[in-house]
Structure formats: C-alpha cells, structure tokens
C-alpha cells in the first residue's frame, strides 16, 4: 500500500520532467537550444499561482471537469503503479475506461463554454477517440492474449519472457501509434501550435486558465508518462544483466522511459501534422498491426 502510494507520487512528480525531456529533445533535433528541462515545473508553478477566469455562462460541468480529468489520470497512475504487485484493480480494462472517462469530461467541458474553438476541439477529440480507443484496446489485447490475463502485472511478466518475438514487435508499433495519438503529438495533433483552427486537445482546453489549466496540463503530462511506462513495460522489457541483481532495476526502467520519450520527440520532429481526415488511416494501421500480432501468436 505504502509502496503504491510512493510510486504514484513519484510518477506524478516525474511527469513534468518527462515532458521537459521531450521538449528539450525536440529543440535539439531542430537545432535550437530550447528552454530548461525543468520549464514544465515552472509553468505549473505559474499556473497554480494564478486565479481562474470562468465564463459566467458555464455550468458545473466546466468547473468540475479539470478535477475529474485529474482524478481519472491519478487513478490510472495508481493502476499502473500497482502493476508490479498482484492486485485486482490493476487491470487493463479499468485503465482504458479511466482514460475514457477523463476524455469524456474534457469533451463535455469544451462544449460548455459555447466558444467555437472549444466545440471544434471537442468534436475532433471525439472523432479521434472513436478510433483511438479500439486501437488501444486491440494493442493491449494482443499482449493480454499471450499472458492469458488482463492484469497488468501478469501481462508485463509474460512480455518479459518473450522479448523480440514477432507478435510483440507488431504490437509495439501498433501501441506506439496509439501512444502518439493519446499524447496529442505530431502527426496527430500539434502540442506547440498557437493556431486555434488546427487544435485538437489544446482547442478543448482553450477556455481554461490559471489553476484549472494547471491541473489539466499536469494530468495530461501524467497520462503521457503512464502511456510511456506501459510501452516500456510491455515492449521494451529486456534487462541489462547485473542491474536487477544490484537492485537498480528501477533506475534502468526510468532510463528506458526517458529513451522512449526521446523516440517520441524524434517522430515529432521528422514529420508534420497529417490532414485530420487521413488520421483514420493511421489508426487503422495500428488496429491492423494488432490483429496481425494476435494472428501471429
């Protein structure tokens, strides 16, 4: 119990650092110096030091949504954090639906303020969600199938036994595509843009400011970290011999997560945003790879 709590706190605290690493890596890939790795922490501190401006026309949904979103991501972090131990809550279906609940509330809130950008962001996010959720489910199922369990701990254990087998390689690519979509990165969404007309995730939260915006940003960063951890746990399971014996398995895991974050930055730099109506094709590729992974078992 205490261990789980410590893990959750560590993951939440490290999430902005992972974001900072991605930003710095991106800047370096573009020949820029970029802001400090710690910039996301400064940004959060700034947001939490500010008041929120709330439109007088909004309902309770708008006020509640940041907390719900944060709570679902917090719970998802918990699910992943208990993954090592055997727990009845550490189930992949619970994880998927927690993320879905958070997304649902953000989309509701985006419509609430009645601004055109929010509505567009919400409608695009839902359009994507219809495609992303089955893709995520399929990718995880292909892992669960080998493990014969939907418990995250069991899945990770089974994955550790068979690194580099064909089903895992196919599923890894499928999951990485979902990872890009879930974290709102190029070629699906552009987290750095100021162009409201092109926004998806950022469009949904345009009406938020101050503390609620900080909460949403923090939750998004934590969600990104959770997704990266899942990717590493299932698809990059191999150990450096000696490290685990020395009790440094945790550090090796963190390094792998950071490398995966770097990979995300590399993909973002090497291409541009796709036209939104071509995204179903990309996610269909992910689904297809997962199906192939299932067949290959």
């Amino acid at each position, binding site marked *: 119990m205490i261990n789980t709590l410590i893990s959750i706190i560590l993951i939440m605290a490290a999430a902005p650092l992972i974001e900072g690493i991605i930003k710095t890596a991106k800047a370096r890939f573009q020949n820029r110096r970029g802001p400090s790795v710690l910039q996301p922490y400064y940004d959060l501190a700034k947001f939490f030091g500010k008041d929120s401006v709330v439109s007088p026309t909004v309902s309770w949904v708008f006020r509640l949504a940041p907390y719900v979103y944060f709570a679902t991501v917090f719970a998802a972090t918990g699910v992943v954090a208990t993954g090592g131990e055997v727990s009845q809550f550490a189930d992949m279906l619970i994880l998927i639906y927690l993320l879905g609940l958070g997304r649902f509330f953000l989309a509701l809130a985006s419509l609430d303020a009645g601004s055109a950008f929010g509505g567009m962001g919400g409608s695009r996010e839902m359009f994507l969600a219809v495609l992303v959720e089955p893709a995520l489910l399929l990718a995880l199922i292909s892992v669960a199938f080998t493990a014969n369990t939907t418990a995250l701990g069991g899945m990770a254990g089974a994955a550790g036994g068979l690194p580099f087998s064909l089903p895992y390689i196919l599923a890894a690519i499928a999951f990485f595509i979902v990872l890009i979509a879930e974290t709102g990165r*190029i070629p699906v969404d552009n987290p750095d843009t*100021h162009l409201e*007309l092109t926004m998806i995730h950022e469009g949904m939260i345009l009406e938020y400011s101050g503390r609620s915006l900080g909460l949403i940003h923090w939750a998004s960063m934590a969600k990104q970290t959770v997704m990266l951890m899942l990717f590493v746990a299932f698809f990059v399971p191999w150990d450096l011999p000696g490290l685990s014996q020395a009790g440094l398995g945790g550090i090796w895991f963190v390094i792998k997560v950071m490398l995966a974050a770097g990979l995300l930055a590399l993909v973002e730099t090497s291409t541009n945003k*796709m036209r939104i109506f071509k995204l179903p094709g990309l996610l269909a590729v992910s689904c297809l790879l997962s199906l192939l992974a299932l067949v290959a078992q």
Partner: protein
Amino acid sequence: MMKYEEIEADKLWEGVAKLLCGGQRTLTAMFANDERMVNGSMAIYCIFAENSSGKHIALKALLKEEPYEFPSLVALAPAAAWYEREIHDLFGLVPIGHPDLRPLVLHENWPQGLYPLRKDFDESLIVSEANKNYPIPGVEGAGVFEVPVGPIHAGIIEPGHFRFSQAGENVINLEAKLFYTHRGIEKAVEGLSVETAFYQVERICGACSVSHSMAFSQAVEKIAEITIPARAEYLRVLTAELERLYNHVGDVGNLCAGLGFAPGVSHGGRIKEMLMRLNEELTGNRFLRGMITPGGVNLDISTDLVSKIKNILRIVETDFKELIEILKQSGAFLDRIDTTGILPRQAALDLATVGVGARASGVDIDLRRDFPYSVYDKLDFKVPVRVSGDVAARLWVRVDEVIQTVQIIHQILHSIPPGEGLLKTVIPELPPYASALGWSESARGGNLHWVMTGQDNTLYRLFVRSASYANWPALTVAVPGNIMPDFPLINKSFELCYACIDR
C-alpha cells in the same frame, strides 16, 4: 507625368468597357480625389495596366455636383469591388449598382456622413463613437454553423476578423473583415513636403518598406522630371531584392509552421535572421529602411560589404537548397500542400491578383519585367510561373524566385557602376497639381503609389495600392471547399500583409 482621358461620371461605364478591351487590359487601381479646390469637382481615377506594351493608361471621371454618384464597375471588373467600397467610405461618392456596399475601411464605430479624405474634413476633429450595424453574410441550413476568428489572434500577428461558415470541418464560405488598424497615412501626408511625407510612406509596412519607398520615390521623380544617378539605381535594386530574399525565405519557413513541420520553421527562421542581420549592416535597419530616398539613395556600400554580401548569399543558397530538399523529400509535407487552397486562374484574373498569388495560378505578370523600372531592363532574370494555383504552387514559385533573386543580386554587385559624385539628385521645385504613378514589385506583388502635388512642394493626394490590397479578396475565394485546419496553411501561402492595407 501622367496623361488622363477625362470623361463625365455617367459615361464611366462605357469608357471603362472600351479600355478593358475584353481582357487585354486590367483594372489595376481605382481611387478618388477631392479636386473641388482645383477644378470644382470630385474625380475618380481608373488606372489600367496594358501588359503587352508595358504602359499604364489612366481614365479620369469628373463628378461635378451633388449627389456624387457614379455607375459601379463591379459587373465589368470584379476587382473594382473593394476600390469602390473604399471610395464610398472615405469620400462619400456612391457607386450606383454596387452589389455589396457595406463599409470596408471604416467600421461600425465610424459615424455616418463623415468622409475623412475629403478636403473639408477637419483633421483635429475628435470623432464620436457610432454604433452602426456591420452585418457579415453567413450561410444558413441544417448542420451549418459559423466560426468567428479574431480580430485578436493567438500569435503575434496583426488584427483581422474571419467568419467561417462551416458544415463539419468543411468551409462553405469565408468572410474577412479587415482594416482594424487603418492609420490614415494617405490623409496624414496631405500638405506635407515630399521629404517629410516620405518617412511615413517608408513605414506603411515593415516587410515591404523598400518596395513602398521605391514606388513613392519613383512617382515623385517622375513629377520632378529628374533621373537619379546610375549607381543609386543599382543600390535601390540591391535593397529591393534583399527585401524579396528575406521575405521569401522567411515565408517558406513560416509556411511549415502552418502544418507543424518544426525543422522547416527553425531552418527558415535561421536563414532569415542571417539575412536580416546583413540588412542591418547594410542600412542600419533590419527592414532595410534608410537606404532609399526621393532623388536617390542615402548610403553607399563599401567593397568589404560587397564581398560580405556575396559570402552570405553563398551560405544562404546552400542552406536554402538543403531546406528545400528536406521539404521535397517529405511525403507527409507534400501531401498537405498539394491541391490545398486552389485559386483558379479565372478568379485570379477577375480579381486582378498580383505577385506570387497570381503567378502560382498561371497569370504571368511581374512589374519588374512587364513594366520595367529602375535598372531591371538591364538585368537577366526569369519569372517563375506555376499553373496549379494551390499552396504548393505558391510555395514553389517563392522557392524559384529565391534562386532568381540571388542571381539578380550577383548581377547587381557585378555590374554596379563605380561610385563617383553624389548618390542623390536634388529634387527641384515641383509643379503644382501634377501627378504621376510609381510602382515596384514587392515580395507580395506590385505596389502602386499615385502622387499628386499641391502648392509649394507639398502633397495634395497620395494613393497607395499595395499588393496585399489586391490579393486579400483572392484568399476568400481560395479557402471555401477546404477543411478548416487547412486555413492557416492557405493563409500563410498567400502571406498577405495587414499593414499594407491599413495605410
């Protein structure tokens, strides 16, 4: 000095129809002038461009008494739509039969019946805030909604309001409400001496400073009937081409921001910065201000600087080609720009579109070649033209022009006559009520300045037709039919200027 065919206002339609000659000439500018102090009437000028001969032909219609009315030319030349609305706003002359006489320059907060460009308008007047209507046409129907964007935008850009009528992501109609920061420069320079007015003219726009100052200076020099020293002409063209270079390079980089291609953005930004630092070294100003002046140029270049320019051009050429290679090899990038935001050739012709916007739609015009000014007739360069009219065409036209511009600068540096004597001809006493047209091809297209002198070496009237003024209406034609997230991309491919129309 310019010659005008004078006609009565009610004969304007016939006169223009005859001059347009079924598309052989284009209506390139139309403006009014309050000449009641000179000859007792309001005047409307129509300037036509005859590409085959490289000449401008001018028609002048006189409106002798109130009510000041003239037949609208929109049905004859659609390009007249904005000009007539502006004349209606600023002079109170009414184009009879205009399909859309909503205010253009002066918005709903400007009181009725106050015409700022008339001579009897009191400049010191504190104008009260009016509360008129400004209807913006929209599309109605099941599932159709409107998306208002601006006038304040998230990036550091100028103000403009865009109203999209949407069905899902598809844009059905786009209305642009612009002119939020109209500065009244044309009014402000009235009564000023040419030299004083020049500073305001040079500051109409940042990115087109050279082009505007060149067009204005040439108009003044035509009135004064002087020629400027040969070396000064070469230096003018050098600065004009350096302006085109940093604009085009920066615009190619910026286009990448429209589709989130970060390496292109930082690459383009870096090369542009290199060029702007060169600009500063050359003229003391990153926008190349301070070089051109009516009568010649203010600054000379040393041999050191010549070799420095050559060096930087070499670096720019290599780096820019590398950037273009990256773009050309990226399938995802090409996928976004091909067939996006098509401006049909006929629309480009009808709206008298200029510059890159026109040349990407198969309209082969370039003032430097068709209406040669300064020393462009002594230079060897090509005018790139594409026919597909999409974002890609506008991008590749810019890319090809960068190559041509680098060539032009090399030619200039090679053949510039040695410096001897002054770089500036003194402008003599200007004849009163004489007028002339000056023009130059900016990075965005042709800029026209029409200047009329008053008593004692002052300006009586200045009319500025910037390239952006001619091209803004084309944007609202190119966008419908595309999806909304492509708007920033299409907008950046036209790269229109707000300051150039808010003169």
